[in-house]
């Protein structure tokens, strides 16, 4: 373990909560549940060291001195402590070491994260115990196991019976001593009982919730660094920082102007690298957009792309389209096959030809469904394949994945709650096969 060199020179410490997770981002956490999780988070430390924690009422006005020694809050981006958060992912939380500074002991959680009390997403209890370790004077540890390892390690199991790993016990006892021969303290009768499972998800009567969260998008595209999810006559839009512009869908016809009236399905969309124009594929035609306006002269026939199957038949629709960031080439998918194009010097030239040796079979991309909804490049140039409500990530330039386990589009991109846990899904390519996780 590692110590910061700072500690509280008292063992009775006060704490308070000054703000709670945004319900729109972390809908599964009520204020009561957050209070309970924090109390158990402190208990983990007071079980092994002679420390007592007393909760004070929070000061929602943000008073500088109110709130006691350790002030807990949920904040986003710049939040006036000189250590801005970075949106969803990346950094999750931080806390200030003990001392006489005004901010000493303060513990901040990134409100852009999806916090939970379950096994999905960021388990608030796990992160709270870690941050309280900092607020008490511990630095990061490289030991395994240790709650003070800097990386998020997932849920620690049953909150009410959680015991700190030995590394952390020794660290806190180095600072504050051993509590009664290291026996867990008397259980505080005021400690609430936590639900054994995460609370049930709120029910949603809004039909757009089901549309958004059940997946099955017609097209998905990374346009100017934002991801657009098209479905029927509507679309949702996720910004660079992972935030959804609105839970409500926008009408395609009101934003993308120039498509035929009554357009209620878009097959594929991508942003062309050479000139940042946006290409829409619908049936056997395609449109080129300059920003949000379709250019004159479109639609034009898909046959101009020269996509032929092995038997010479022209392709009459596109399932998916994207530019693979690792080589800058354009890939169009149709009927279980894909074609590659080099558009770097062609601009708006009407007649295109795919690269030689194409089409190839989609099965070259290992572990994904043969017929995907769409594909994008995202993050560090990784390829993201989408199908129904799942997506698969191929690290930059690779045709195989580290793990073939699909992730949830709804949870990770569209602010949807986690589905109830079920048995492990079958492999999309071999539905008769079972897959075992580590516990299985």
């Amino acid at each position: 373990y590692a110590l910061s060199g700072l500690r509280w020179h008292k063992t009775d410490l006060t704490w308070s909560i000054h703000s709670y997770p945004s319900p729109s981002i972390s809908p599964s956490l009520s204020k009561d549940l957050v209070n309970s999780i924090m109390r158990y988070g402190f208990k983990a430390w007071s079980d092994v060291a002679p420390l007592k924690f007393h909760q004070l009422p929070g000061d929602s006005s943000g008073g500088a001195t109110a709130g006691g020694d350790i002030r807990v809050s949920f904040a986003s981006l710049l939040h006036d402590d000189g250590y801005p958060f970075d949106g969803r992912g990346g950094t999750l939380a931080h806390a200030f070491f003990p001392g006489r500074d005004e901010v000493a002991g303060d513990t901040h959680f990134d409100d852009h994260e999806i916090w939970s009390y379950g096994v999905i997403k960021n388990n608030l209890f796990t992160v709270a115990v870690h941050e309280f370790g900092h607020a008490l004077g511990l630095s990061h540890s490289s030991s395994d196991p240790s709650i003070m390892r800097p990386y998020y390690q997932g849920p620690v199991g049953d909150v009410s019976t959680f015991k700190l790993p030995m590394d952390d016990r020794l660290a806190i006892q180095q600072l504050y001593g051993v509590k009664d021969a290291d026996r867990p303290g008397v259980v505080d009768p005021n400690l609430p009982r936590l639900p054994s499972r995460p609370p049930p998800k709120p029910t949603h009567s809004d039909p757009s919730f089901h549309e958004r969260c059940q997946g099955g998008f017609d097209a998905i595209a990374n346009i100017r660094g934002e991801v657009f999810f098209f479905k029927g006559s509507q679309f949702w839009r996720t910004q660079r920082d992972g935030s959804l512009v609105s839970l409500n869908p926008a009408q395609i016809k009101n934003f993308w102007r120039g498509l035929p009236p009554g357009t209620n399905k878009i097959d594929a969309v991508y942003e062309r690298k050479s000139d940042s124009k946006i290409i829409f594929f619908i049936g056997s035609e395609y449109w080129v957009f300059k920003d949000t306006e379709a250019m004159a002269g479109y639609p034009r026939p898909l046959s101009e792309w020269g996509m032929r199957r092995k038997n010479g038949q022209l392709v009459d629709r596109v399932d998916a389209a994207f530019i693979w960031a690792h080589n800058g080439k354009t890939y169009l998918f149709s009927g279980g096959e894909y074609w590659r194009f080099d558009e770097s010097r062609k601009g708006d030239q009407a007649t295109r030809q795919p690269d030689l040796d194409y089409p190839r079979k989609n099965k070259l991309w290992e572990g994904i469904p043969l017929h995907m909804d769409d594909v994008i490049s995202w993050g560090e140039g990784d390829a993201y394949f989408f199908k129904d409500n799942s997506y698969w990530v191929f690290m930059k330039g690779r045709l195989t994945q580290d793990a073939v386990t699909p992730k949830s589009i709804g949870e990770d991109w569209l602010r949807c709650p986690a589905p109830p846990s079920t048995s492990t899904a079958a492999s999309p390519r071999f539905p008769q096969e079972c897959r075992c996780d580590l516990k299985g």
Partner: protein
Amino acid sequence: PVVPDQYSRAVDWLSRYGYLPPPDPRTSKLQTKEGIEEAIRVMQRFGGIQETGVIDSETVKLMSTPRCSLPDIVGRMDLRRRRRRKR
């Protein structure tokens, strides 16, 4: 191979979490290749992955893992200054 953008991000990450001294605008000091390799090794050792001294896929993956925003190595600069003064 690591692309330059990824490399500069990794150096930024190493500085942010205390494995490299933060850039000094007064001296425009460049990090040495050896210094960065050593920082990567320390980071890999701390994170429990294979020590290669290069930004391989495991290292990139670890750097992308959600984490606490406090540095892992605290006071590295202070330690160096103290050593210099002592000399």
